[in-house]
């Protein structure tokens, strides 16, 4: 079957690219050595006796956490984007449609200004603040727009999301004006990047990401019914209110955790689901798992470019994503609809 073939091929591509990416960098390490180092360090396999301590440190302490982070963040953003696009029946929806990004940015910016230091804070105070900001923003949109009620609310969800995001962006501007020397750090968060990802920080974010993304990728049956609208979904036996709440909650948890870890990485969550639909059609039961793999693959490639040339990964995804979006729109005008 086509869906299964495409999904397995993408998964294989992700594994190959991931191994290659761990080895690729200023100090190149051969793929087989990468496998040997990982096998030895993680599983205690008796392989590769002559591996240098330097190579092991580069793989295990620097590159592997960063690559696992890229995979987790890419998968979370693309799966959430695909879920929001189906749920809101809107091809322009992305993971940040309910104000996640603005809330996270404001939370992070405030955290940069708080003059607290301490072990726990160093471990991820900014990340925690971004996470809380994202959840608070979605909670606000959820409450105002009344998510979980009827069909006519979709437009109002989008509008409320936009309004709340604008309000938070204004607040962010004020905080940035007042931030003085911290402006550069805030700006770095806004651009999105995976520099300096450590195992503890990764572990804190990767667990909610993995749980929420895997659960979300399994909600495709309800999301497939949502493609036809709330009323038709009801007639197909779907409890619309319940399923919408579950999907929004899971997508928000995945997105907020991803943003906390990587800052505001744009376009992955918007573009990858459309690529997946081009490959396997519009059924979310096929689109969600493929988006997870494709998002991981895209962000991993983008981050490899980003760390090679030394720019934030968000800049790379925007550089790839924006022209791709324009190309999709061009195709739409040429007769192929999104």
């Amino acid at each position, binding site marked *: 079957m086509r869906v299964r073939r495409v999904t397995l091929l993408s998964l294989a591509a992700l594994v190959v690219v991931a191994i290659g990416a761990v080895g690729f960098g200023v100090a190149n390490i051969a793929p087989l050595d990468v496998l040997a180092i990982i096998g030895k360090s993680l599983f205690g396999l008796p392989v590769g006796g002559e591996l240098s301590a330097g190579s092991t440190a580069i793989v295990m302490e620097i590159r592997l956490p960063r690559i696992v982070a890229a995979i987790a963040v890419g998968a979370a953003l693309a799966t959430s984007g695909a879920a929001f696009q189906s749920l809101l*029946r809107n*091809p322009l929806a992305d993971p940040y449609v309910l104000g996640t990004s603005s809330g996270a940015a404001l939370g992070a910016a405030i955290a940069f200004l708080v003059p607290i230091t301490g072990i726990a804070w160093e471990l991820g105070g900014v990340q925690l603040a971004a996470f809380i900001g994202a959840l608070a923003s979605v909670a606000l949109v959820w409450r105002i727009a009344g998510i979980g009620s009827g069909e006519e609310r979709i437009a109002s969800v989008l509008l409320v999301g936009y309004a709340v995001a604008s309000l938070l962006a204004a607040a962010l501007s004020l905080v940035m004006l007042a931030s003085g020397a911290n402006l550069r750090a805030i700006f770095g968060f806004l651009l999105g990047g995976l520099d300096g990802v450590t195992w503890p920080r990764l572990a804190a974010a990767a667990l909610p990401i993995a749980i929420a993304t895997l659960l979300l990728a*399994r909600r495709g049956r309800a999301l497939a019914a949502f493609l036809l609208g709330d009323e038709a979904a009801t*007639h197909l*036996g779907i409890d619309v209110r319940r399923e919408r709440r579950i999907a929004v909650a899971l997508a928000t948890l995945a997105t907020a955790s991803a943003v906390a870890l990587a800052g505001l990485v744009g376009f992955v969550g918007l573009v990858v689901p459309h690529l997946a639909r081009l490959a396997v059609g*519009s*059924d979310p039961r096929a689109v969600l798992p493929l988006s997870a793999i494709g998002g991981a693959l895209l962000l991993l490639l983008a981050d490899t470019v980003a760390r090679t040339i030394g720019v934030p990964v968000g800049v790379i995804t925007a550089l790839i994503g924006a022209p791709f979006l324009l190309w999709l729109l061009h195709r739409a005008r040429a007769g192929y609809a999104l």
Partner: protein
Amino acid sequence: MRVNETAPYELLGARNLQVDLGGAPILRHVSLSIGPGERVAIVGPNGAGKTTLMRALSGAVPATSGEVILCTEPIQRLSRETIARSIAVVSSDITLPFATRVEDLVALGRIPHGRGPAGPTAHDRERATAAIERVGATYLQHRDVRTLSAGERQLAAIALGLAQETPILALDEPTAHLDLRHRMEIADLLTSLAGDETIMKTKRTIVAIFHELDIVRDGFSRVILVSNGTIAADGTPAEVLTAERISGAWGIPLERAARL
């Protein structure tokens, strides 16, 4: 559930049903009973409550008082999935946010029969293909739903309902926006579909909302006239669609009603 075909039993019914929406009563004192294999047309002026009646009969809006019976059970006791395996509701305007082939759209009708996160199974695909073939739309199966004409789209919508494999097929204005020929084709198709045996070993029941009285007279054995939120008449087309009733329900002069 297997039932002897000769024994009439209640597939769809309402007992003194009242439905309020936003505090305003939309339906009052509605009682009806529909059996296997019946072809029932619901007619009435705009705003009379036809669509609300169909939504209440399919459990999409709750009864404010009274009750709805589906396959001999009070509908509030049935799960959403059980309802979806008993009554398919065909929408008159299917819109999709993404390009979707007709075969993939129709396969969505298998959702109430599915379980778990996987997409349509080979059996689901087979049932979807059979449904498309049944409405004579095999030539459309690879087309994007969003490029179809109004008539083609209606065929796809009916196939989606058939793929649900329910004893009852309900349609809200299946002939809206269609030209004369497509209207006749849909009406003939519905007549023919009512003769099929469903998975419950009974003939398929068709309940459809119409505005065109000629279609109702030609193709339906029973007409329910809804007026002002209540059932004004229920019987054969000859009994229900008299000039007096048409004139009264739609508020048009008697001599013009007599020519309809």
